[in-house]
């Protein structure tokens, strides 16, 4: 069933608050938690108003005193406006603050570029000790919220806004472990977030029809990146394609390219939002299609790239190219 990851987070957190008195929910007037939710959470819920820098500072102060705050804000404000507080007050001190950032990527849709976060993954994964995850559906969100209880340091979780489809059943989502959703020796399709992962799965089906077998990785954890799974998948492959709702620089594509350049050199093509601010109104689905972050694009990219991908020392894929 389609469900918003931000709602999945809220519904997963509320019962945990009751069981774990050290957990706090610090809000910045996001409206995600209703008055009823707040009443149920009692003193463990606080709405600190529209003041994201203060939100991060208060969370850090509480975490330094043994509390574990979940802070609610939009990804755009968390990672740009409050970045210094996250860097200095939270990451530098390795404090267990959970930054629950909604409206990630293009999820803000029609709200426009002020509310879209297309740099957040680059920014957050640059911070030492920060765990960065992008759940691809509601079930993964619930799993990550539960797993965060055992995480000693800071955590950034990129959430969506509206309902997005669930992933097909696969290996259980575990922070730090890439999920191999499909195995194939020719290309690796690596992505994160609801629409990109589904697009890669669909692309793999189409590619199989062309005789190209794809490994599909859901790399929901950008930091620490599961380099073992990634390099093992890339070893036999002639091409790695990344797809994400993020500007092309610095996000998942950046993380994958950096890792493979050092460990398993193979051609990497990064697909993402082009180097521009969104210039038109549209839902998340509309903008995803507008910027061609689609299965068709992945298929096209793979077929074009494999035409030229054969390199010395590797068994090329030329036999698959018509």
């Amino acid at each position, binding site marked *: 069933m389609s469900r918003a990851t931000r709602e999945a987070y809220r519904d997963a957190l509320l019962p945990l608050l009751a069981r774990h008195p050290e957990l706090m929910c610090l809000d910045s007037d996001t409206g995600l938690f209703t008055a009823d939710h707040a009443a149920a959470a009692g*003193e463990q819920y606080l709405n600190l*108003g529209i*003041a994201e820098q*203060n939100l991060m*500072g*208060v969370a850090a102060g*509480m975490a330094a005193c043994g509390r574990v705050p979940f802070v609610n804000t939009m990804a755009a404000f968390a990672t740009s406006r409050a970045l210094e507080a996250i860097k200095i007050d939270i990451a530098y001190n390795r404090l267990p603050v959970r930054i629950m950032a909604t409206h990630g990527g293009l999820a803000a849709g029609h709200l426009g570029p002020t509310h879209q976060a297309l740099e957040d993954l680059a920014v957050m994964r640059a911070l030492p000790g920060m765990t960065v995850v992008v759940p691809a559906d509601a079930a993964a969100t619930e799993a990550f919220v539960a797993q965060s209880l055992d995480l000693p340091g800071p955590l950034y979780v990129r959430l969506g806004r509206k309902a997005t489809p669930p992933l097909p059943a696969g290996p259980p989502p575990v922070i730090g472990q890439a999920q191999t959703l499909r195995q194939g020796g020719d290309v690796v399709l690596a992505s994160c977030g609801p629409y990109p992962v589904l697009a890669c799965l669909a692309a793999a089906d189409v590619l199989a029809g062309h005789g190209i077998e794809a490994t599909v990785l859901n790399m929901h954890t950008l930091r620490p990146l599961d380099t073992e799974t990634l390099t093992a998948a890339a070893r036999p492959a002639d091409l790695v394609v990344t797809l994400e709702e993020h500007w092309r620089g610095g996000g998942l594509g950046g993380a994958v390219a950096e890792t493979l350049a050092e460990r398993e050199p193979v051609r990497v093509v990064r697909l993402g939002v082009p180097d521009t601010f969104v210039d038109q109104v549209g839902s998340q689905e509309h903008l995803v299609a507008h910027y061609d972050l689609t299965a068709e694009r992945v298929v096209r990219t793979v077929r074009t790239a494999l035409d030229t991908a054969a390199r010395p020392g590797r068994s090329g894929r030329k036999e698959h190219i018509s």
Partner: protein
Amino acid sequence: MSGNQLLERDALGTLDAVAARIRRHVVDMCAGPEGGHLGGGLSCTDVLTALYFSVLDVDPRRPDDPHRDRFLLSKGHAALALYATLAERGFFPVEELAGFGRPGSRLMGHPVRAVPGVELPTGSLGHGLALGCGFALAARHAGSPARSFVLLGDGELQEGSVWEAAIAAATLRLDRLVAVVDCNGLQLTGATEGIAPMEPLAERWRSFGWSVREADGHDPALLAEHLAAAPWEPGKPSVLIARTVKGHGLPFLAGRPASHYVTLSPRNHSRALNALRATEAGG
């Protein structure tokens, strides 16, 4: 104040004598290879003395006691004064102060957590009050009577995040939170009032819902009296506006923006120590 603290204070001498020792350390540190934030270090020395030698319930032998009072130097560039105070209070050996600014020392130009007694690193301005709110909230949730103190610079009040935190503290009725503004009237390039005026400061804080007092920032006993008595109004956070002089104790630098960051030459180092001695002798 606990009996333990009274005993230690008697052993160490009066607050003025402690402050004088701290000032000498600050001056010495500014004679090191990197120099230091001399003016702002000397303007807040008496506040730090009042806090660490009379007000704060802290124990250098148990720096992580969960029920301790917590202090944050939000104006982190005054780190050298904090280090000198912590060393005099017994958090680490006074001899270590000689390493300030020298390669390999943990005494960086802004406070870092590696230094015993430093609660959290500070230095980028405008962070301390929000952190202090977090301390105070956590103490409240834990049912602890501990108080949280934050020392801000008056130039620092130009950072909007200070006022975000001021709103939060008053709204949350954090009356175990106490702020002190080291109001020396100067920032790096000139008079604070000429660059981004904040007066009438007391009225501004009051309008944000804080309980406000003003005091001579160079009278540690008086400062201690005010700070020990906080909260001054139930349900309200307290802010003490300490009227201070940048570079206090050094007539050739006092009240001048040039005192902001100084590397003292050997000649000026002697001159500064002589000036401190003269000031102390003159009472």
